[in-house]
């Protein structure tokens, strides 16, 4: 789908506004609410990420088939679908983490700013500085303090920054953690709660100033309170970067994302069935399988 097609669908989707006053009770309502709240024409400060014909194999097992997705700058895209249909595998091809598992291979292209990140001769560590990732289980470095954790990305990438304290405060604020930890930056990261640790990981990912942030089920190991705070963080962040989030939780997708892509596997390789603005996917999905999933008939 090209950008112009997507924006035309946006305008069509606003007919949901007549239900605005009713209590949001269905997924489509939630999504519609969000579409409303998002101010049209927010300057996209992030960069476009595009996947073209991406396949992924684990050894001989074909796990992901022909996924093409365009993530517009400044948007939040949710990847939904039942377990095992390739969402996590796909998101890992976007920042070249898929290749860590031995005996894997892929096909297709992933373009950042129009350039294929899999091109030979590219330093993959530079790609990962521009496309960051937050994992399902919070994984701060236990041997470092909170402050050191946030700045660890700089140390690992050997980036020079003039003002460490400023960057520290900025990243922790954007991650929604600053007020809670500003007095104990020297404490060890292990003492934080699960939700705080995850926000620490978000702050850490932000410190290297990525253009895209990938989130692989970031809230599935957290309690509802922390989940809500992180969703607020995601909304804030989307104003300045592109975000792709894998989630099992359809309510979360509806709350948080502008676009949603539905993945499914029928026993064979996972495929991307349908992608569109979130409120459309939840209210008027074009594919029957999508509708079955979002109405809870399976998965």
């Amino acid at each position, binding site marked *: 789908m090209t950008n112009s097609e997507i924006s035309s669908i946006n305008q069509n989707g606003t007919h949901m506004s007549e239900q605005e006053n009713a209590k949001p009770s269905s997924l489509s309502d939630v999504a519609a609410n969000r579409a409303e709240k998002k101010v049209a024409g927010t300057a996209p400060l992030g960069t476009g990420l595009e996947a073209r014909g991406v396949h992924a194999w684990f050894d001989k097992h074909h796990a992901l088939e022909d996924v093409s997705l365009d993530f517009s700058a400044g948007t939040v895209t949710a990847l939904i679908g039942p377990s095992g249909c390739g969402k996590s595998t796909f998101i890992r091809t976007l920042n070249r983490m898929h290749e860590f598992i031995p005996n894997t291979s892929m096909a297709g292209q992933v373009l950042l700013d129009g350039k294929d990140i899999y091109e030979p001769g590219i330093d993959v560590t530079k790609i990962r500085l521009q496309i960051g990732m937050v994992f399902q289980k919070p*994984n701060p470095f236990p041997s470092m303090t909170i402050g050191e954790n946030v700045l660890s990305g700089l140390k690992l990438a050997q980036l020079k920054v003039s003002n460490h304290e400023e960057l520290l405060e900025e990243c922790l604020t954007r991650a929604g953690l600053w007020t809670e930890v500003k007095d104990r930056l020297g404490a060890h990261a292990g003492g934080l709660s699960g939700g705080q640790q995850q926000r620490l990981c978000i702050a850490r990912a932000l410190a290297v100033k990525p253009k895209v942030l990938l989130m692989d089920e970031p809230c599935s190991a957290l309690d509802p309170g922390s989940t809500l705070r992180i969703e607020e963080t995601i909304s804030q962040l989307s104003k300045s970067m592109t975000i792709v989030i894998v989630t099992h939780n359809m309510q979360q997708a509806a709350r948080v994302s502008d676009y949603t892509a539905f993945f499914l596997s029928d026993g064979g390789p996972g495929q991307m069935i349908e992608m569109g603005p979130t409120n459309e996917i939840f209210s008027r999905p074009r594919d029957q399988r999508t509708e079955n999933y979002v109405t809870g008939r399976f998965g």
Partner: protein
Amino acid sequence: MSVASPTKVTPPARTITTKPRVSDQIFRGIVTAFSFSALVILSLIALFLFLKGFSTLRAQGFGFITHFEWSITTDDAGKEAAHFGLQAMLIGTVVISFIALVIAVPLSVLTALFLTFYAPNAVKKLLITVIDLMAAFPSILYGLWGYFVLMPMAEYWAKLLHKWLGWIYIFNVPEPVFTRSPFIAGIVLSVMIIPIITSVSREVFSQTPLDRVQAAYALGSSKWGMIRAVVLPFGAGGVVGGSMLGLGRAFGETVAVYSVLNIVFRTNFHILFTQGGNVASMIIQKFGEAGKTEISALIAAGLVLFILTLLVNFAANFVVTRTVKSGR
């Protein structure tokens, strides 16, 4: 039962007992008895070494460990005057074991890192087999190899070291004789303890939690950056534990050291010079011609060695269990 009674009373847990059958009681009895054999053996070792070394210990007192002289003189009247002080050999033990650690620990850590993070699969399997094999080599083989094969090369290195760094005390020599020195003994010992340090290090490195590794890579780290930030902090305890196990082995090494070290009863910190010793090889050296008094002294020396290695191994196993086996 009225709904209004709010308090629930949880009954206390019942104690569950069983009366085992006679055959099982016998079984448990036998197994338990045999498993205390470890305790029995260790105690017997301590006991008999103490008993048979007692006369020396009583005569020398604490000086047994702190004095430097080891001699028996018999004057014309047939009276014996004996001085037994292990200090020189204890220092010698520490010196060569220290040299062995200085060489072995970096090599082992590098090898463990190479095996865990850099080696392709086929190479890794081969290397691991080779290292396990190394652990099975008899110590006298290391003695033979050390004397006939390593020593000529090591003598050359020692000369180089002396030439360029001879102004440092330990690399200075009173006379230019470089064969059978603590330096060479240290090298041979290091080759002997590399397998165990490498094994333990490899085990702990491979247990590095994958999520932290991936977190580092996702931040744009290079492989070395990841190792520094995640693997080394995580594995430090295991490496220390493995090194202590190696140290324990080095303390007690006998025939290999005897073959490549000129055992002289003097403290010697000039490691390139042909003079040194450790308690174990000294026992072997003197045993053949020892009279009754000296045998008691040698047995007492064995007791000291026993206690020393026991302490080091206690500490080592403590560290290893806490860091490697528990999977932090």
